[in-house]
């Protein structure tokens, strides 16, 4: 039996039990500028509406925006293990339904139709399994720090479509794979037997379990959209123009520049060892206020050590670059980095995936067949 150690970044990818898979010719990556995220959850809802509306998917949020600092979703996910440690997969905890929370049923019938609208509040029904005690962004606006130097920021989270996906390694049935075309980490739901080792192994805990169908599920990078040149829905629906999509290897594109050239976009928890392909521009924050309410320009309001715990030691140089660029612009200069992050033209966010989905022919196949077979024409 071939052991399944983490491959070198220079080696071909590994899937299953050491079976060599070719490196993706192109890796689709995303960059989220956390300085622009306002926590509106439009990305989350866009994803929810598109992908997880079926029975068994009620609690699933393939895209979710967490308020930081916080325990996140699932509750305490950063302490649940998984990932790679010294080249070997590290055991992890399988998040429970209670730890994810959500998927609630509300007492609509009682409040709206039961004549108790003035005496009963709208509330989730307590199902006794703890799922009403946590949810997709339970930490909303809790944040950290103390007045007047409280702080928080938002962190959009989705599957990282990792270069070294430990979930693929952990799957015993061979249902999971990293797609060559675009580097998306996917699962054949016809093959998945619901063993859920992927959920344990994923250190980001962004894999959910569909109890109704006995399969695990996670973000699919909107691959059916990518295939027709449309950006993932989380990026396209984002009103803040903060979600970039593109090929990591496109040296002319914003993703490559932000990640590789300028070093201002960083992976979340790089120490997990999976090589995420979702990157974040770390948040700057307002200056701290002194006790007399004067501005302290020397001390960042968000503790640098906290940001380092999320994005690794490179966060300091990333923030230094951002501050330097800001200063240059304030002094009357120009900044290609800031111009890129401002996104003057909305389509510039989407790299090669700028097709408007409204321009696609989405006539249901069944209707087309009916028409060709001589069924009555529709009005």
């Amino acid at each position, binding site marked *: 039996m071939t052991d399944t150690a983490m491959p070198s970044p220079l080696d071909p990818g590994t899937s299953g039990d050491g079976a060599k898979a070719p490196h993706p010719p192109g890796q689709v990556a995303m960059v989220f500028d956390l300085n622009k995220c306002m926590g509106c959850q439009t990305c989350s809802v866009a994803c929810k509406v598109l992908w997880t509306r079926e029975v068994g998917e009620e609690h699933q949020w393939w895209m979710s925006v967490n308020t930081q600092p916080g325990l996140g979703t699932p509750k305490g996910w950063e302490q649940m293990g998984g990932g790679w440690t010294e080249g070997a997969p590290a055991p992890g905890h399988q998040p*429970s339904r209670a730890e994810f929370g959500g998927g609630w049923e509300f007492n609509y019938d009682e409040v709206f139709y039961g004549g108790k609208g003035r005496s009963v509040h709208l509330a989730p029904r307590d199902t006794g399994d703890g799922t009403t005690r946590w949810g997709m962004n339970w930490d909303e606006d809790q944040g950290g720090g103390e007045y007047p130097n409280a702080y928080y920021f938002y962190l959009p989270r989705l599957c990282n479509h990792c270069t070294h996906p430990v979930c693929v390694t952990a799957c015993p049935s061979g249902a999971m794979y990293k797609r060559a075309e675009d580097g998306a980490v996917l699962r054949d739901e016809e093959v998945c037997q619901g063993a859920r080792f992927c959920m344990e192994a994923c250190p980001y805990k962004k894999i959910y379990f569909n109890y109704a169908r006995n399969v695990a599920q996670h973000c699919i990078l909107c691959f059916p959209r990518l295939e027709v040149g449309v950006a993932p829905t989380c990026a396209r629906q984002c009103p803040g123009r903060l979600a970039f999509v593109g090929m990591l290897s496109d040296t002319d594109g914003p993703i490559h520049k932000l990640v590789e050239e300028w070093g201002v976009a960083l992976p979340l928890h790089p120490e997990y060892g999976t090589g995420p392909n979702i990157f974040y521009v770390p948040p700057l924050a307002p200056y701290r206020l002194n006790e007399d309410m004067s501005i302290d320009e020397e001390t960042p309001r968000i503790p640098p050590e906290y940001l380092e715990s999320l994005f690794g030691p490179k966060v300091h140089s990333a923030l230094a670059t951002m501050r330097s660029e800001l200063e240059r612009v304030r002094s009357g200069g120009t900044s290609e980095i800031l111009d890129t992050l401002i996104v003057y033209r909305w389509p510039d966010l989407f790299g090669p995936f700028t097709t408007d989905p409204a321009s696609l022919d989405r006539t249901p196949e069944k209707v087309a067949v009916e028409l060709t077979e001589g069924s009555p024409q529709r009005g």
Partner: protein
Amino acid sequence: MQGGSEVDIVEATGDMLDPAAAAWTTVPVETVRLAPVPLEAQPNAYIRAAWAGRPYGRVSEVRVATVRSGDSLLVRLEWERSGDPPGEFADAAAVFFPAAGGTAPPITIGTHAEPVTLWAWRDRLEVQAALPQAKELIATGPGTFRPRGASAGDTAGSGQTSERPGSVAAASRCEQGRWNVVVQGDLGPASKSGRMGIVVWDGSNDERAGIGAVSPDWLALSSS
């Protein structure tokens, strides 16, 4: 009977899919010892790391009886259920047969060269009411279960189109702390190979995939 001995297939009398059918009381019952599927045989490094030092394969023996009904084989399995409360995983069991002969022992639950066909049963958790409890799978090692007809990938023996989709059925009862399960499938694979293996998973111990208890030796199937 220790593993490696014979299990006698007798003629069924009436519908015996129900494990409580009276006819089962007349069928010879054999006790088969089970052993944990070896950790080193698990299909990937993650599972080996996650279960190192953690006991599994907690069902140590199972009582087995078999009957033939027309073109079908029915296997009745009975074992003591764990007293632990159910968690994320359901109790489950399967019988399996060499898909194409070979010499590999059953403790591997198939190999790439010698896949096995499983008739698998699984209890339903409360939230899984709509799920089927029985299905036919192909395995090329512990936990490497795939539905028949699933895409082949590099897995020998898969990629086949099932000739009998939905041909496996099961019924179960849990009484006085003991599971009684009957799985039914096409007699063909069983009679062709003349051998059968058994694997049982204790769901309350998070056992699933290759983490379970298996018959260390093939059970020879004989017809009286």
